């Protein structure tokens, strides 16, 4: 990342060839909203992203022309729905370069994906005295499921510490890796401070001890290209709603031999081979882990969202977002008394900050009156904020549809709001 002072929008246009943010914004109907009479500036993308027309239209198309239950019907409509659903699985597989489509399991979101692995893999493989390794910058969703399974099994949760820049302390990680370690579950990109972690290095190190690794890719998925074969992780999860897809759909990737060795998480219809009252045999992955009628439209919407992103081009998005991050960091750094929390070298455009003498909740509420939506609070990462000695921060998290003009208006509004609070 290079800091660019006084970035003008023309400069950014020039830097990202073929990337026209103002044209792309037209794909997102909600971005035309006004809040308290001001144009909406949506800076809470790490919480959830807005949806492009392509995704919304795909859902309408599905419900108007393809809706039926999948995998069961012998009639044409059910085939249409099944094909659309399985087609979405193909799109997901391709987008993260999984070796087999059977390695893609549709879940409700990353939270369910992690719970599935913690419960199914953890219950089968963990025993008293074993250790599970996570980091200090995990989202609560990648802490609590492990805490519960460790408690149940008498296993111990170990934590990789974070330094003052918000980067993982890798030397500490290497010391924590021992023959007792049975699993590593690590966040790819921090949701509260934006740090991109060196997950490939972490996975390589864990594999020297034959330890499987789960990657929480929730914040990576909207901003970075993901290649599970290159990462060589055993599991990876993300939530669809953070990558411009509907809520209620997410992805769990698992290496085939891991998934097939794991017991089902939930049970019911569409995941069984033979059911008698004496015994039930199960289908192979992914169906073994998709009990009941899944979120069919959500999966199809996710497929549409991925195709939409592919249409813009990952590298175009990445390049543009880097200029947004540089500009926002520059603008915020100029504000008196503002402390950016998380100054890692590699970041996505997520900026957490606190301001001397102004509570995040007051800042967030007053910015709302300017039409600006930011997140305030602990961002479901209490242990991480404890590390920085704060209980809450303001967080501006950007997406490729945000603009330099929005950042400038945000910075000006922030100065105005701080003055109001402190006066």
């Amino acid at each position, binding site marked *: 990342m290079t800091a660019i002072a006084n970035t003008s929008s023309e400069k950014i246009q020039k830097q990202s060839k073929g990337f026209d943010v103002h044209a792309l914004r037209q794909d997102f109907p909600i971005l035309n909203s006004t809040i*308290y009479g001001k144009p909406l500036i949506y800076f809470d993308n790490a919480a959830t992203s807005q949806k492009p027309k392509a995704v919304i239209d795909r859902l309408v198309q599905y419900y108007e022309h393809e809706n039926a239950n999948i995998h069961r019907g012998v009639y044409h409509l059910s085939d249409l729905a099944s094909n659309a659903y399985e087609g979405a699985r193909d799109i997901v597989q391709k987008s993260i370069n999984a070796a087999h489509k059977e390695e893609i399991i549709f879940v409700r979101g990353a939270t369910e994906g992690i719970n599935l692995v913690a419960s199914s893999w953890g219950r089968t493989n963990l025993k008293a005295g074993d250790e599970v390794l996570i980091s200090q910058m995990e989202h609560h969703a990648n802490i609590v499921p492990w805490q519960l399974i460790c408690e149940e099994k008498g296993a111990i949760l170990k934590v990789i510490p974070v330094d003052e820049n918000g980067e993982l302390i890798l030397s500490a990680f290497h010391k924590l890796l021992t023959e007792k370690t049975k699993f590593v579950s690590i966040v790819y990109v921090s949701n509260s401070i934006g740090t991109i972690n060196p997950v490939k290095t972490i996975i390589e190190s864990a594999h020297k001890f034959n330890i499987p690794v789960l990657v929480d890719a929730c914040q990576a998925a909207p901003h970075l290209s993901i290649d599970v074969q290159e990462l060589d992780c055993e599991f990876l999860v993300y939530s669809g709603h953070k990558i411009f897809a509907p809520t209620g759909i997410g992805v769990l990737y698992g290496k085939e031999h891991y998934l097939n060795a794991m017991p089902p998480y939930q049970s019911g219809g569409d995941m069984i081979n033979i059911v008698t009252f004496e015994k039930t045999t199960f289908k192979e992955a992914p169906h073994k882990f998709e009990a009941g009628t899944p979120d069919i439209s959500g999966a199809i919407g996710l497929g549409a969202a991925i195709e939409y992103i592919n249409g813009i081009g990952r590298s175009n998005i990445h390049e543009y977002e880097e200029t947004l991050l540089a500009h926002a960091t520059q603008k915020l750094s100029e504000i008196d008394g503002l402390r950016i929390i998380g100054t890692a070298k590699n970041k996505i455009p997520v900026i957490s900050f606190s301001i001397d003498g102004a*509570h995040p909740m*007051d800042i967030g*509420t*007053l910015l709302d009156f300017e039409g600006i939506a930011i997140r*305030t*609070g602990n961002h479901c990462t209490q242990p991480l904020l404890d590390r920085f000695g704060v*209980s*809450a921060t303001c967080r501006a998290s950007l997406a490729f549809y945000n603009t330099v003009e929005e950042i400038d208006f945000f910075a000006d509004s922030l100065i105005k709001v701080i003055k*109001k609070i402190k006066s």
Partner: protein
Amino acid sequence: MTNTRSIPEIQEEIVEDFAMLEEWPDKYEYLMNIGKQLPRLREEAYNEENKVRGCQSNVWMITRFEDGKIIFEGDSDALIVKGLVALLLKVFSNHSPDEILNADMGFLERIGLQAHLSATRNNGLSAMVKQIKFYALAYKAKMTA
């Protein structure tokens, strides 16, 4: 300071004050201003025991009982919440447990704050009101014991 006006009278006055402020930003500015005027508690009062849990911010509340009336004092780390605390103290402090227990909370709805404050912040507001009623109940029980 003795409070000679009844709870409904004070509530009515607050409702009128808010009615004069047409836009939401103005209402919040008003809240922040009364928050700024709220004095800090004595330092040792900022402890876990006196904390009323909210999601986004912290509230501390202490009480004492004088001449059959409950005196409330409170503070928050967020200015808007501090304003809400000040509002509640203005209404409830220096009244008897019975007056507090019989008080109608409808005034918060009438100034629209209940609806406007988002769910998380509203939970904090509800928690404060609950805490006030809880104190009233406790002092009443003590009086009749």
